């Protein structure tokens, strides 16, 4: 638990759950911060279709966070060395289950949000 960000070894279920919660909280916080920044930066001049714009900004936020997260993954693998990545070992996956959860979760979240935006701006929508 000394290094929750760069340790890829599975120690215990409790540690893993703590790591998951910590990552989710940090991810949420980062998403919020990026979203807040982007809402103030993007589409400021466009006062119409505000809700759509904000939803679009959120997709950009996920995208931006996804890039950041990929950078983090790269650093994670770089620091641990390529020899420590035991792709055929199931225990290895338990060690990086937090990163996997966030990675897959982000992609899923992006597509869910994209779908809801599409629904709003489709032909029959009043927006």
């Amino acid at each position: 638990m000394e290094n929750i960000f760069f340790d890829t070894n599975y120690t215990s279920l409790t540690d893993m759950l703590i790591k998951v919660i910590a990552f989710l909280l940090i991810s949420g916080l980062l998403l919020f911060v990026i979203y807040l920044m982007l809402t103030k930066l993007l589409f400021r001049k466009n006062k119409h279709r505000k809700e759509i714009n904000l939803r679009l900004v959120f997709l950009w936020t996920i995208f931006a966070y996804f890039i950041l997260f990929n950078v983090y993954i790269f650093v994670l693998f770089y620091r641990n060395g390529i020899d420590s990545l035991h792709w055929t070992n199931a225990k290895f996956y338990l060690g990086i289950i937090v990163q996997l959860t966030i990675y897959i979760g982000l992609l899923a979240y992006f597509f869910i949000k994209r779908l809801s935006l599409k629904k709003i701006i489709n032909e029959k929508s009043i927006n």
Partner: protein
Amino acid sequence: MATPTIIIGIGTSGLYTLENAQRFYYETYKTNKPKNVEFIYIETNESNRPVGTPIGNDITRVYISLDNMAEMIAELKTSCNNPSWLPESRVVLAAGLGAGGIRSCGRLAMWGRNQKGDNFGNVINAITNAYAKVMHVNNNDTNLAAQPTVFVTGSLTGGTGAGVFIDMGYLVRHIIKNAKDIYGLFLLPQEPKVIRGFEVMYGNAYGAIKDLEHYNKVENNYKEKWPNGFTKDLEAPPYELVQFISQDYQDGAPAISTLSGLYKMAGLYLFLNIAGIYEKRRERLVDAAGNSLIGKYGTFGLSAIQFPKDQIQEFVSSQLSIELLHRLTDSAEYYLNGQKRPISRASIKQNMAVMFDGILESAFATLNTVEARDLLVSIDKDATRINKGEIKGSPVEFIIGMFTSTRNDNYHAMVNNNIKSALNVFVDNIYQQVDNAMQSTENLYYAKYVLEDIVESIERTLSYWKSIGLSSQTQNWDNELRKLAIGCTKNTYKSVFEHDAVLKDRLNTIFELMKMHLSIRVLIDICKHVREGKIKLEGSNHELPKLQFFDELIKKLNALTGRTDELENGSISFARRLNDIKGDINDTTLPILRVYPSNSFSKECEKAKETYTQRSGGNVRSITEVIQQQNILNYLKQKQSGKFNEEIYLDFLKAFRLKVDTLNCIEDFNIASYIRNSTEESIRTARKATSPFLKINRVFTPSPYLPRFVVGDDSNEITDVLTAFRNQNYNDFPDTIDGKKELTDLKNIVVFYDEKGNYIPITDLSYINLMKDAYTNVPSGLADENITSERWKNNRSAYTTN
């Protein structure tokens, strides 16, 4: 010395004769009449109106209405001592159009008075006014004779002319006390080949001749109490001289084939009189009367050698009019900037869809402001208040209250009350699009498609609005509104401090939806107006055009060009007129020899058209040639409200005739030189003039006291013509001062005139017995069994002369 002259046309034949006289005068002098002449036309048929020349019409119309004849009869019985000629009420009620061929009905029309006016008074006023005008042309004009001359013309076959012609003579005598001469020029039916079916015509003519003969006898007085209170007991005959003409020739040559040919000859005679031959004729007639060579009845022969410049001008103008009308009604192609292009429906649809989006935006923008209050600003403020919690009640209820149809103090009420301004924007912009299309393409189909495709765009928009749950029904709107208001309070984006902007946007969206909901009715009305024509919608300046308007225009214009044959009988059309002109030109029964520099009428027309094309700057006709800078839609709409076909026909024809004339597309032709080169043919034509237009059982011996002369534009050239005739041993027209009349402006025609007299039509007309028979006996097999012998005879009589 110019003689003040009034020419009075009675009935439809009188009108046609006057039109011809006016037209001959226009061809020669480029005005419809000289200032010392007035044309009056008296008619019982309301639908008949004078047709003018390219510069308009100078025939004054006096309509004598035959409405409420029974009441008119009742009144005349009281006011005029129950004149015995008055028809029975039951007879007149079955008369039909005009005087219905019943002579006493024609007379009744002139004497009567009804809600449309005092006919007798109107006729008197018209003659009095004409008299005043011709006598006061120019007070300093020492060349103006002091006494006026009056010509009365018409046919004696119908009810109107045969009914009023004797009254008219006496009425003129009553109004113009110092009249120099009162002449009658009356048209008689030609010698009948078959009398069956024409008994009314011949019977009326006989009755009229009989009545005239009665009043021409010194022992018979005209005794009447007129409706204006005057009691008349006059010894003088109604006319100094009555000239009768018909389609026949005295020498038995084939009769003039059409009545219009006879009107033409009568018109030519009247024209020549006002142009200058009257004085010459009168000098001879005074001598002839002194030698008992003329009597009370006369007739004349006329023939002419003519380059028909006017007919060529009219023919070419008609062709040009047809070309322009074809441009207006071309369903496949249009012209833009002189280039012919196909009408692409897909392209119009696409453009109009974009255009309608713009129109919709403008219309909705007008709804944002009510009495200088910007509703969008107001909505933004309301959004802020909601977010700050400065409202009473829940936000959902507050939002519903803002836009619900159930209140009269909210945005819904304000926009609803202002919806007319949106309608104005819709109508004005749609009108503008159609108008622009019409102005730029001069094609009715193009403009129609523009309108049709705008309406299609509207229908598509309405269908889309329907698909998102909108309708014009208020209940439906209130239900939708509740859903939208609830949606406004969810997911407010307060966490990123955007809740104000989001709510403002959401409220604006509701506001836009409300505008759509309120505009649905307006747009449906626009569609109904345009497609079905059921509703009348007006913008700030114009009524919205309808598809039906274009369809009707196209139909009528096609009929006018002869493309479709949907004209009523007798209606005017260019195709018909072209045929008439060709018929007239090729009519060998008319005593007019048509001559051309190129020996062909069609070649002259082609040449004139070619010249017009060169001088007018192109072979694409534009409506600006007719209406100049006027708006096309306004012009057509204005014409739609009147007698469309007639007015369009005249406008187009007049405009092109004027242009053909101004651009000098047809050069004059020296007729005298033609005669010198084709003397034999010219002599044949000149000889026709010596045979009058009437079949009389009497040989008219030539007399130097009676007018017989040649009319041309140059006295020397007439002399040359007569010399050429003499060289061919033809001496009917003497080369003396009396035998020549120079009218310097009379270009393109040489006229041969020969006057006859000293006969009694009631005995000398070759077919008078047949006419008498038609007058006396009821035709067998009449559908109306109520017509007894007595009633038949009464219908053919209008004066108590038995």
